[in-house]
């Protein structure tokens, strides 16, 4: 029992981390809060389903294709919509929110509802860890989570684009003078975050069906993790995912599965009271620069 709880708590935490990573990365780099995030996540799922079933593509084509298209759509949202309202926080938020809603509800309208909308697992098997059954897909999730988090760290510390990302994140104006195109970097960051969402979708969605409402759930979870961990802080995301992830599984094991959402809600309310900017968030102090 305890062992199972630990294993599933760990897996659940990684799921939350995967889901929140992309949102946080985009925000951390360019300050864009992409409220279309959940929609992009679900879109990646449907796209690869369409690739597999309507076009009959093999998995190794359909899945990367879906990731690429999702990232492309995100970049286009930035380039054609967000760029026009850049700097107006209200408009940015509303525009991404509206785009996400349009995408999700369009899928619903087009009838993408049902049990047939499932993605195949990467490996269809299950293993015993101690005396707990774990299907291989969940192990894939853990693998993907670790890989993606590690890649993010490597990318932002050792590649030129990644360093440009960090440059912009730290000081946009200085970065501009160094010849970094802030708009391009921001577009990349939105695409990058969406790519992460798509990858997360590909490994997580095989556990269930692809559903429109999943888009809202993902956004809620991503925001919850970011609020608790602190916006834009990768360490915060990881810590918060594990806090909420384990708390949820403990609730599910010892109380009731349906109470899991209550845990996130309580976590958010508690963190708002104790440390409003999140565990690792650096809330912008009211300071004047230069």
């Amino acid at each position, binding site marked *: 029992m305890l062992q199972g709880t630990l294993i599933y708590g760990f897996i659940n935490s990684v799921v939350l981390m995967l889901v929140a990573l992309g949102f946080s990365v985009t925000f951390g780099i360019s300050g864009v809060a992409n409220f279309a995030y959940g929609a992009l996540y679900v879109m990646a799922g449907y796209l690869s389903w369409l690739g597999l079933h309507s076009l009959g593509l093999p998995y190794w084509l359909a899945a990367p294709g879906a990731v690429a298209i999702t990232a492309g759509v995100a970049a286009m949202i930035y380039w054609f919509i967000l760029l026009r309202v850049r700097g107006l*926080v209200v408009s940015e938020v*509303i525009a991404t*929110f*509206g785009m996400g*809603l349009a995408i999700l*509800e369009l899928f619903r*309208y087009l009838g993408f509802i049902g049990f047939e909308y499932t993605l195949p697992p990467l490996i269809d098997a299950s293993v015993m860890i101690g005396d707990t059954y774990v299907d291989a897909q969940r192990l894939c999730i853990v693998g993907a989570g670790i890989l993606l988090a590690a890649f993010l760290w490597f990318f932002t510390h050792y590649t030129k684009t990644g360093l440009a990302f960090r440059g912009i994140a730290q000081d946009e104006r200085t970065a501009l003078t160094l010849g970094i195109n802030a708009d391009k970097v921001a577009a990349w960051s939105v695409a990058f975050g969406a790519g992460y969402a798509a990858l997360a979708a590909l490994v997580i969605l095989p556990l269930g069906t692809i559903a429109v409402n999943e888009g*809202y759930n993902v956004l*809620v979870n991503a925001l919850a993790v970011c609020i608790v961990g602190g916006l834009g802080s990768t360490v915060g995301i990881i810590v918060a995912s594990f806090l909420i992830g384990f708390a949820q599984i403990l609730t599910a094991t010892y109380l009731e599965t349906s109470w899991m959402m*209550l845990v996130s809600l309580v976590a958010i309310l508690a963190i708002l009271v104790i440390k409003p900017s999140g565990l690792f968030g650096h809330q912008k102090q009211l300071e004047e620069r230069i």
Partner: protein
Amino acid sequence: MAQRKERIDRGIKVRSDDVFALTSWREMAYLAFPRVVPVVLLFLLGAVASIYWERVLVTTCMFALLAISWDILASAGMVSLGQALFFGVGAYIAGTLNHYFGISPWLTIPIATLGGGVVCTLVLLPVLRLRGIYFAMVTMILPLMIERVIEATKIFGGTEGISGLNTLGNVHTEFLVAAVMVWVVLFSFRRMMSTDYGLLLKGINDNDRAVMSAGMNIYYYKAQALFLSSAVGAFAGAFMTHAYQFVGMPVFALDYSIIPIASVAVGGAGTLAGPMLGSFILVPLSELLRGLGGLRVVIYAVILVVCTVGLPEGIFHYLSRKYNQFERWVKVER
């Protein structure tokens, strides 16, 4: 020879911005016209409309209130993505008071208005300290989460909700209350926003540091704005609860967040009247589009994006400019 449009304020605007020095019937009529006509029009519409459309008007008024409530918050620099929170809290307070304690709607609605204001303000109080998108994030997820929590814990009727609540009376009574309320709220808050208190709220939005360095506790004022706004939203929720005779999870649905924002985007933020105008365009329109089913939300969302990006000014600003200024083409030398 190139041309350019020249705009000149009509005289009365220039003479005084606050207290009107009325000198002639013409000027009074000029000022009264855009205020009186819509008021009369709404009551006339209510009088001639069929029962079905009268209900639509009632709903429209409530969405207008939600949109106004959004705009009050935004004036003080808080962007909400979750008017459904205010709406839902008001709805549940009124619904439970009526169902469990048998209190009359004429009492539950005022109680829910104040109580909803207090509850929402307390819940969001910690977020007031944060700038930027935090407020939007928190307000967006709270209603969605509360919905889930009600589903899980089965409190207040759980997924079934509570039905069989008392009504205020017939549709005509409801319409009268709704219409009177919407005008009272609109005019009193517009008045408030043009007093120095309103300026202060706008000042917080423009530059919170400067307000603070004038020795004012901006969180205190933001909390007041939050209370006013959430009370208005809670009123709408409480009212609709009794109109539908039902309260349940749908009161926290995204519709109650998205339509008000879309109304603001269409009507134009910062005027309170603009958002109301937006609701009066969008809600009846959506009634006409009922046949489209799920596509309606898509259309809303697209309108939202298009208006936010392409029409940042909104219809109301445009109309008010046309009304308050002369426009003419003048030649300019190249």
